[in-house]
Structure formats: C-alpha cells, structure tokens
C-alpha cells in the first residue's frame, strides 16, 4: 500500500500541480477579470491602446478561467418570467382569417354570406348564413390545413376545424401549438437578449426554463425593477383606424372592433378597428427624438412595404384620425393632414426622455411575441454582495487556520501531512470550479467551509486506524499500510452517502442551493483524492527517508 510506482507518483503530483495552476487566476481575481473583459472587447473588433494594455496584464499562456460569482455575491438582478405563449395563438388565427375568408367566398353560392365573429382567445369563428351547408364549409376550411412538420406531431395537421350550429370554429392543433410555443420562446429569448444587450449590461444570463419560462440574470444592475424596465413591455406598435372616441370604459363595441384607453389621459377611450393598418413588423429603425414643441418623442422608419401601405392609407384617409397604439394603449390619435409617403414618422405621447430611449431600444429590438409575467425576482445590491464575499472569505480563512492548528496539535507530523493535503484540496476545488465555470454563491462558500471541516475526516479515519494498529505492536510501516487498508471501506461508504445527498441537491435545487451542491460535491471528490493519494504519498516519502523505528501519531 505504501509503494507508489513512478507513473502513479507523476500522476498524483501532476494533478496537484494542475490544480494549483488552474486555481491561480482566482488569486488575482479583479485583474484577470479586467483582462478577460478587455480580450472580449478586442475580439469584438473594439481595439484601443488602453484595452490592449489591459489585455496584456495577464500572460496569455496562463489559464484565465475564473470561478463565476453568483448574483448574491456580485450583486445584480434575477428574474424568472413566464411567456404568455397562448397569446400568439390569437395572432396566428388573425393571420389565417384572410385565407379562410377567400376559401369560403369562393363557394358563396352554396354556403351563403360569411361573417367573422368574436370567439374565445385562441380560436377563429365564422358564421355562415346557410346553416344547412355547414358540413361543406367545414370541409372547405379543413382543406386549408397543412401537415405539421415535427417529429412528435407527425401525422397531424396544423389546424382543427369543428362547427357549432351555423358557426365554424378553427383552432390550432396540439402539435401545432407545441411548435408555435417553441417558436415563441425562441423569439422571446432573442428579443429579450437584444434589449438587455443594447442597454449595455455585461454578461447577462438569459435561458429558457421548462416549456414557457425564461430565466434572466444580469449582474451589476441596480434592481430587478430596472431590469424589468429594460426588458419592458411587449412594445407592440400598431396603427389603427379610429371609429370613434368615448369616455366610457364599458362602452360596447361591435364585432372586430376594440376599445383601448388613451395613454396618460383619464376617461378617454378610443374605439378602433381591430385589424391594424400596419404593425411593428414593418419597423426598420426607431430613435429617441424631440417633436417641434421640443417634447420627447420617438422617431421611426418603416420598410418599403410598410411605407407603401402607410402611404396608401394616409392618401385615402386625409382628414380622419388614426391611432398609434403601443401595447393596447393609444399613444396618440392625430388627424391625417396629408399623404405621408416617406415611411417615416414621429410618435409623440406622454413620454419622458428616459422612456423614449427605452422605448426606441424596445422597438428596434422588435416586439415580444407575447407578454411576460414575472414569477420570481430578486435583487442584491453590490455592497451587500461585497460584504458577503468579505465575510465569507474571512470565515473561510479562520476556519482553515483553526482546522490546521487543531490537526497538527492532534496528530503532529501526520497532522501536517493532512494539512498539506487540505491546502491542495482547496486549490483543487477552485481549479475544478474555474474549469467547469461553476458559480460560487454564498451557500457555496458555506459548502467550501464545510468541506474544509469534513475533508480531514478521511485522514482522521486513517490516522485513528493507524493508532489502533500500532497498539497491536505492528511495526510502523505495517501499521500505516493496515491503517489505510482497513479505513478504506469506511471512507468510501461515508463519502458516497454524502455525495448522493450532494447530487440530489444539484438535481432538485435551484439558484444558490445549486451553488452549494456543486462546491459540496466537488469538495467530496477532491477530499477523497487528497486523503487517499496525496497524504499517503507524503507519508510514503517520509517513511522511505526516515525509516522510523517507532511511530508517533
């Protein structure tokens, strides 16, 4: 047990050396972080002499991966949001309507006149004047169905058509809903990312979670409200034809019309045509600006198609008002003075300068396909995070020193061996966390402290066993060998049970708890390595050199 082949020795020392090598950047945290930031900037083509100087502060042959600091340590905001994927179904049905209309119109002779009626949010309802021919109408609409092209939905169509008396009901099929949901989620993620990036925050984490959730973490931002402000609303911009103006919120509207409130004005509502003239998809640019009265406004530019539709509409409707609607609120409803042909315009509303800046970012990034609902959020101020780092570091150091002293008092030279192993152990934990880009959270620091306490356990088991074997008057070498041999099963069993707990924590836990599970789990593995290999190697070197007659432990 105490003989090590050369390969084994090289391997053990190699792992230890690698551990220190990869843990080292964490010792120069802020410097390496600045260098990493500079390198990213340079890679993005942003080359300034200052950045080059910063980037050369850390030799490129050295590793530069760092342990990520969690939000609770660095400060920042965390949001868990649900994307209302079901809202997209309605838009899909609106897009589908012209196709259905044309199909039914072509057989006007048999099924009579048709009329779209309001339905439940996610379906399309059409009433026909000849209820007897409903089967024929359903058949016509069903013919429009397209097969769904996905693995799980193979064999099904994108729509389901049913009827109820004289009404045809068109809905998305389940398979198509799943596809739509996925697309909505991808778009939402992309648009959230663009908005957050444009606001100039660094290293945001934007991830999909489950079927309809998004996790957004932005370090360094002041508060989750600020983050919500940046992500903003859906920023769905549409232009509608105005039917009339009213002061009653409960005003009944006709089919295919909507009642939207005026932004910033109480008791002013507009009845609008539900189908917009044009929508934000035609937007190519949006910038904060000021109108002729020097009030903050947002200027926008439409693409060619948008400009043509808008031009045609304004030319035909001179003198009548049209509404600029943002997220179901009428921002303004100017009267069309003349034909607007250039495809650019300006939106004046009750805005502040900050709002116009955010709004133009959101409009440029594109509208979110659906609304977000915030399910969980948290903010940690940077000072509190720094306090936690300081407190955690101090606690770690004191714990470390106390354990070192305690071990050497209890086991003398062998205690020192265990201490060396403990130092190597901590280096290995940091090395592994850096390489796997693990995140260190406050509970994670607790995990490291706990590991420091428990890491000596394996050594204690061995040392106590060696003491026992010595009592049975074995010679030192034999006692050590037996000590290791007999303590082995206890070490393995004890650590595997703890590892099981850590893995389960990793699977079921979330956020900071995950951070704790990672450090605990990594700590267990490294502590077993250092206890079984490193300490034993140290003892074997010592015993070969000194050849002691009596062992004091």
């Amino acid at each position, binding site marked *: 047990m105490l003989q090590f082949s050369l390969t084994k020795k090289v391997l053990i020392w190699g792992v230890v050396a690698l551990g220190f090598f990869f843990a080292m950047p964490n010792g120069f945290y802020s410097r390496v972080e600045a260098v990493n930031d500079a390198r990213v900037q340079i890679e993005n083509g942003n080359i300034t002499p200052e950045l080059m100087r910063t980037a050369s502060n850390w030799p490129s042959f050295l590793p530069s991966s760092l342990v990520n600091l969690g939000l609770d340590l660095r400060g920042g905001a965390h949001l868990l949001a649900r994307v209302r994927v079901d809202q997209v179904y309605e838009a899909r049905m609106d897009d589908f309507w012209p196709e259905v209309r044309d199909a039914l119109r072509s057989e006007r002779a048999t099924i009579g006149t048709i009329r779209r009626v309001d339905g439940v949010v996610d379906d399309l309802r059409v009433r026909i004047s000849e209820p007897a021919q409903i089967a024929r109408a359903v058949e016509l609409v069903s013919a429009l169905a397209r097969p769904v092209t996905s693995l799980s939905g193979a064999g099904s169509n994108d729509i389901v058509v049913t009827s109820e008396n004289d009404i045809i009901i068109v809905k998305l099929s389940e398979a198509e809903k799943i596809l739509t949901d996925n697309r909505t989620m991808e778009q939402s993620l992309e648009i959230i990312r663009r908005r957050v990036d444009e606001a100039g925050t660094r290293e945001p984490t934007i991830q999909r979670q489950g079927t309809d959730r998004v996790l957004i973490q932005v370090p360094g931002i002041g508060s989750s409200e600020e983050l919500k402000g940046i992500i903003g609303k859906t920023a769905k911009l549409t232009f509608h034809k105005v039917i009339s103006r009213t002061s009653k919120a409960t005003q009944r509207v006709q089919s295919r019309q909507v009642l939207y409130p005026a932004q910033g004005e109480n008791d002013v509502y507009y009845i609008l045509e539900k189908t917009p003239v044009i929508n934000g998809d035609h937007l190519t640019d949006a910038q904060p600006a000021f109108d002729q009265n020097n009030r903050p406004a947002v200027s926008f530019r439409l693409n060619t198609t948008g400009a043509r539709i808008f031009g045609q509409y304004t030319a035909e409707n001179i003198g009548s008002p049209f509404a600029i609607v943002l997220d179901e609120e009428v921002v303004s409803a100017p009267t069309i003075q003349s034909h607007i042909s250039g495809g650019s315009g300006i939106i004046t509303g009750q805005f502040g300068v900050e709002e116009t800046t955010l709004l133009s970012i959101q409009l440029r990034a594109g509208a979110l396909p659906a609304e977000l609902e915030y399910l*969980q*959020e948290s903010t940690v101020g940077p000072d509190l995070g720094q*306090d936690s780092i300081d407190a955690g570091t101090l*606690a770690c150091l004191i714990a470390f020193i106390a354990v070192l002293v305690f071990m050497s008092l209890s086991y003398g030279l062998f205690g020192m061996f265990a201490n060396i192993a403990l130092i190597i152990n901590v280096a290995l934990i940091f090395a592994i966390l850096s390489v796997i880009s693990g995140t260190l959270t406050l509970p994670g620091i607790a995990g490291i402290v706990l590991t420091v306490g428990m890491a000596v356990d394996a050594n204690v088991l061995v040392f106590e066993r060696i003491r026992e074997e010595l009592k049975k008057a074995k010679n030192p070498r034999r006692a050590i060998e037996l000590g290791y041999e007999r303590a082995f099963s206890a070490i393995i*069993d004890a650590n595997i049970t703890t590892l099981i707990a850590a893995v389960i924590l990793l699977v079921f836990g979330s956020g900071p708890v995950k951070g704790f599970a990672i450090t605990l789990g990594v700590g267990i593995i490294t502590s077993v390595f250092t206890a079984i290999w490193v300490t034993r190697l140290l003892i074997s070197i010592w015993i070969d050199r000194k050849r002691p007659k009596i062992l004091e432990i």
Partner: protein
Amino acid sequence: MRLKLVPEGTKVDFFKLTKITFGASVFAMILSVFLFFFNGLNLGIDFLGGTTIRTDSQQSVDVSAYRAALDTLELGDVTVTEIFDITKPELNAAQIRFEAQSGEEAATVEVVSAVKLALMSIDETITFPQVESVGPEVSGELVKSAITAILTAIAAVLFYIWLRFEWQFSVGAIAALVHDIVVTIGIFSLLQIKFDLAIIAALLTIVGYSLNDTVVVFDRVRENLRKYKKMQLKDLLNMSINETLSRTVMTSLTTLIALISLFVLGGDVIHGFVFAMIWGVIIGTYSSVFVASSVLLRLGVKRDWDKLNDGKAGTQFSGIDA
C-alpha cells in the same frame, strides 16, 4: 504531547442509559411533530410566495415607524424585523416582508416602489440592498421539489446502505436520519427561525453528515461482527462505538470549528443556514450512536457474514432476519 480529546481504550457503555436516551429521542421527536403542527414553521417567501426587502440605513432602525409607514399601503400581512449581527454593531438593517399580492406574478413594480417610497419618506438615508419576490406558482413548485429532494435522498441512501450492509443497518441509519430531520424541524419551529430553500439544503447536508457518521460506526460493527463471532451484540456494538469514538469526536470538532467560524464571521445572511448545519452536526453525531446503534441492537443482525456457517443463521439475535 498530543492533543487527545478521547483517552485511549475507552470502555463507555453506551447502552447503559439506553432507556433514557432512546426515550429522550422519541420524546424530542414527538415534541417536534407537536411543535410543527401547533407552532408551525416560519416559512420564507420561497415557500409561501411574497416579497422580502432588506433595508440598510445610517440611522437606527425604528420598527414601529417602519410598520406605521407601511400600514397605509394595505399590503396585507406585513412583518418588519430588525437584523442584528454581533460582528457589525453599527449595522442598521431590517427585513420587511409582505405576502404575495393578488395574481400569479411575483411583485409588481408599483408595489415595490410604493414600499420603497414609504420607507424613504421616514428615513432619507435608507437603501435597499436586497429585494426578493416569489410568486405563488413558483413557491408551490419549490415546496414540491424540496420535499422530493429530501425523500429521494433518503431513498437513495437507504438503497446504498442496504447494498453495502444488511437491511437492519439500513433501518438503523434511516431511523437516525428521520430523527435528525424531525428534531431539526422541531428546533426551527421552536425558535421560529426562517425556514427557506437554503435550510432545505442544510437539511440535506445534515442527511449526508449524519449518514457519514453512522456509516463509519456501522463499518466498524460489520468488521467486528466478522472478527468476534461469539460476542454479544450489545458488547460488540459498544466496542465498535468506543473504537471509533476518537474519530467521531475529531471529525465533529473540526467540522464544528469551521461552521462556528462561519456562523460568527460569515454575516447575518447565512445565519439560519449555518445554524441548521451546526445543529445537524451535533444531532447527527448523537444519533449515530444513540439512535442508529440502538435500533440496530433492537433489530439484531445476521451473524454469518463469512458464510462459513452451514446456513442456519447463528445466534439469538438473528430471529428477525428471514
């Protein structure tokens, strides 16, 4: 010259007072269950939904003024607690907590801003270093996954010990484990310390630690069972515990040293978490001797570890094993 916490060759009879210790454990568990149902846990927003806001100020915290300022907002159930940290006497921090407002969302910007404004109106120097908000939908899931995590951990470990030992050991270990968790929940209910997700992590660590300790003792029991085939189980257990006593005390102490340092110096944010672990180490050490081994003694074990006997499982203690 060496620091020896446990003298060599101890022969403590750990089962002498077994009636008292076992009785105490059972009593503590019953009391904990009682506390849990009648006193309840001080559940955090992780499990209930709602919002917590940490405040920090240059001026000292006036809890009743804070409360008065917030009462006008009609947020429902609001609690204001001052935060103390012995290492930072100059800290003027408090924790405001209110229940989830209507709907599924975590917290609306309006509500949080209203709370901040209300507090700033009575104290200009106030800052809000931490705001956390959990909607009811997520909190429900968190409870579910926390319970799943603990049950899965127990099941997985039960299985592992059953693989490595015999089923009686498994039962003994689980008895100790359940004892530790129940009594820890009891102390959290008694002291009304905030029970949140981090505490669940602490509980799982306790699971790991308690097992760690139990398994070391059991490992020695298994070894001695092979060695001393004729020894009375009670004496054998006693001998095994005495032999591993030095190690048990050493490891518990190093772990406790580390944890206490974290408790004192680590800041108030993780006090509850570290407290749970300190408590867990103490109770876990106790239970591996007084609960796990006692249960093992009661259940008895099969004594034909080496399969050298001719199949008739050998002693008076083996009656239970089929």
